[in-house]
């Protein structure tokens, strides 16, 4: 058990280091010199260019040898100094990220968890009753098959343009000053609803289908048959089935939440909602690699932590895992 855990921790640490190294390498992988790429946006005579180049190289640390830059990156990572952004020079990368983070969390955490809860209920109910199954299942698949961009456009068109119920862009009405006032909060909620609903709908289909399949499998399992043979009530069997089925679903939830910090780029882009996904898109469009670097640390940490938690949870709760994973062959 300890050997298993220590091996796991080692693997994850290694993955983290590899991830951070690749992340650091991104600006350096791009063709050309990142500072030169940035300066190409301005019209500079040679004297001005030389001065700007020197200043920018110092600001971004590119004038040091590669190895030094790498070490500086690690130091900065651990002390919270994630450098400056190109796109919004001279804003700090960390400032931009923390400005955008709450919008993404507020959008995705409720969407994923609510769709998880509702989807599980729907899926389990559908597994029990044929009538529900015939509507939930195709409905779920259609929802899951909808491309995010299209659903966002369709919802924006119907609710925004045609029926004028919800606004289709931005985090809140322009001109409002952020404060704890009802005007502001209601404006926030109005603008939040459509992006939230888009993510909610697409995820809902997925969870419902997953749960439905898992519950069906569990209900027809040998262990369920045995319980039935013993005379246990359907309700009890369903409870056990639900619990067993939840395990893989839970791992899915943990993983989905792990990548949440990456934001849902397409939805945020379609609704101009200023979360992390939108920030990623801006960073990419403007080739602001230092900003990208900062955002990806978040994503890397999120994914690794989620995976690690899944592993621990499975080891604790699922005895089959413990047996199967230790050393391989029987």
């Amino acid at each position, binding site marked *: 058990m300890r050997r298993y855990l220590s091996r796991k921790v080692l693997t994850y640490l290694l993955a983290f280091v590899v991830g951070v190294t690749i992340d650091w390498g991104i600006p350096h992988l791009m063709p050309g010199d990142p500072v030169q790429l940035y*300066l190409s946006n301005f019209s500079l005579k040679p004297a001005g260019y030389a001065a*700007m180049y020197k200043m920018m190289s110092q600001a971004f640390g590119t004038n040091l040898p590669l190895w030094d830059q790498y070490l500086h990156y690690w130091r900065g990572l651990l002390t919270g100094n994630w450098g400056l952004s190109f796109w919004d020079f*001279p804003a700090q990368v960390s400032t931009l990220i923390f*400005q955008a983070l709450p919008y993404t969390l*507020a959008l995705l955490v409720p969407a994923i968890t609510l769709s998880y809860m509702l989807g599980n209920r729907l899926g389990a109910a559908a597994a029990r009753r044929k009538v529900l199954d015939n509507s939930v299942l195709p409905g779920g698949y259609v929802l899951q098959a909808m491309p995010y961009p299209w659903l966002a456009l369709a919802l924006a068109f119907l609710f925004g343009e045609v029926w004028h119920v919800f606004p289709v*862009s931005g985090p809140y009405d322009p001109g409002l000053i*952020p404060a704890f006032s009802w005007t502001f909060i209601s404006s926030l909620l109005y603008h939040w609803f459509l992006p939230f609903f888009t993510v909610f709908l697409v995820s809902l289909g997925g969870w419902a289908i997953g749960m439905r399949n898992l519950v069906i499998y569990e209900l027809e399992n040998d262990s369920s048959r045995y319980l039935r043979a013993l005379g246990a009530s359907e309700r009890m069997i369903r409870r056990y089935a639900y619990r067993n089925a939840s395990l893989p679903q839970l791992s899915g939830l943990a993983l989905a939440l792990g990548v949440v910090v990456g934001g849902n780029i397409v939805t945020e882009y379609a609704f101009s909602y200023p979360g992390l996904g939108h920030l990623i898109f801006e960073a990419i469009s403007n080739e602001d690699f230092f900003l990208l670097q900062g955002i990806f640390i978040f994503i890397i940490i999120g994914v690794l932590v989620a995976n690690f938690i899944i592993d621990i949870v499975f080891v604790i709760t699922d005895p089959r895992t413990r047996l199967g994973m230790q050393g391989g062959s029987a």
Partner: protein
Amino acid sequence: MNRDTKAMKTRQAGRRAARWGIAAAAVLILASASACTSSSSSSTPKTGTSPTSSSSATLAGYPRAQTIYTSGTMYSPPTTWNPFNVGNYATGAQGLIYEPLFLFDPIHNNSYMPWLATSGTWSGSTYTIHVRDNVKWSNGTPLTGADVAYSINLARTNALDPYHANVASVSSATANGNTVTVVFSGAPAYSEFQDFLWEAPIVNQAIWSKVPAAQLITFADNHPVGTGPMLLDTYSATQEAYKLNPGWWGTPQLGLSFKFKYLVDVLNGSNNVELAALSAGQIDWSNNFLPGINQLVSGLGGAGGYGISTFYKNSPYMLSANTAWLEPNTSKAPMSNVNFRKAMAYAINPAQIVSAVYGGIVKAANPTGLLPTLNSYIDSSAVSQYGFSYNPTLAKQYLAKSGYTGQNLTLEVPQGWTDWMAAIQVITSDLQAVGIHVTPTYPQYSARQNDLISGNYDLAIDNNAQLDSSPWSYFQRVYQLPIAAQQTAQLNWERFTSQTDWNLVQQAGTTPLTDTAKLTSIYNQLQSDFLQQLPEIPLWYNGAWFQGNNQYWTNYPSSNSTSNQWTPVMWRNYLGAMTSIYALANLKPAPAPSS
């Protein structure tokens, strides 16, 4: 059974609570985050201004009828009001806060309007500036000649200053009260220095002399002290707001006053989002490129349909702001052959680009490429003699003489510039029709810049030649020598070598602006050479995009207005350099709708 039910009910209640909890948490996170990330500069007394009667930070929002909402300038969150950060300072840093010595008026005969300077006179190689009296900085100290001299000397000594090149021929600037004497060494570069007079901000010496030289651009300056008509009030990640400066000199001295109390500039999303915001009345003054705007404007018979005004009532609707040209890499074959360039020029139909791609909101270019505001400089006899036009037959003839062997060339525009991406599809099919094989490519913006700077391309579309007061910068852009391996100054990207023409340009640069006869003859010669060599192929003029919504404010700038014929643009290098302040000052509140 009872135990099961109870357990399940508790679980259900728990789940319900969890759901509400999550929703509530979401709201709290959102609200606190937005509140935390916004800032109010009026809360810190550093600027020394006394807050006006109602502190705006306590309002839920800015009162709609007294606020004008603008967009089209800011594409990243406002973080700096440093006017030397010319690529990224927040809208209005120059214009509403910092001001230049003169304003350039491209609409009324390319004249200059005195602003912080009341006059400027040349005498040999000395230029004397009379600084306006009774102008105060927003912290109460008076503007003096020392500030102006400081600004000039800062540009002279600090290579990071964006106006460093404009004052390269200046040897000293000294102040005596409100008079500043600028002395030049050798022949003054009149045209370049002229650009300094209307583009460069005048900054407060006491404050800026404390900024270390290396931090001239990185200094965020988020409590800016300027002489301008407005003060920074609040800003957040998505917008910034200004309030009126009660001590602004423009009101008593020029009779200019704004009818609005607040100006809110909004961070831009993509163009379609801005179109929606404008139509919905959330934005009053938009400088965004809005594809499809021609339909909204011309919808109701050209009388400003849907309540939206543009500068011109009909096509091209927009003032022309820069020249979009096909830029061949003349250091490479077959672009090095003048007949090949001519073949391309005659093969392309700009009228189709104007109508199909832009819906008529741009204008086809004059063959010389000079913007309409420089019409008085255009040598029409040279144009009629040497100018090109759409003529595929002639194009094929030139192609036959050019030595083109049928190779495939690439034409690049930046990824994401949708109008250009559509335009080069039209261009490549036009070129294909006469037998020139071109593939359109869409590299990322920086990669494309890199290609142009290093000369690693065949053909490109470019629009660096902006509105200016004379053709000088235009021809500098075309003929600048020497050609370096890395053309970082964004001049002569087409790598064309013509020593005679470059000499002419330099000659024009050192000719006093009052010597119009000499300048005219130089520019005529340059145009004639340009048309015969075609180092660039001007195609159309991109517009100074402007759309105004008449729901809350009206009397927007227009070509036939009696009171507002000023530049309708809040972009950097327009708001604090051209006459946009006049445009803002002449806006009127819309009449209340009569029910």
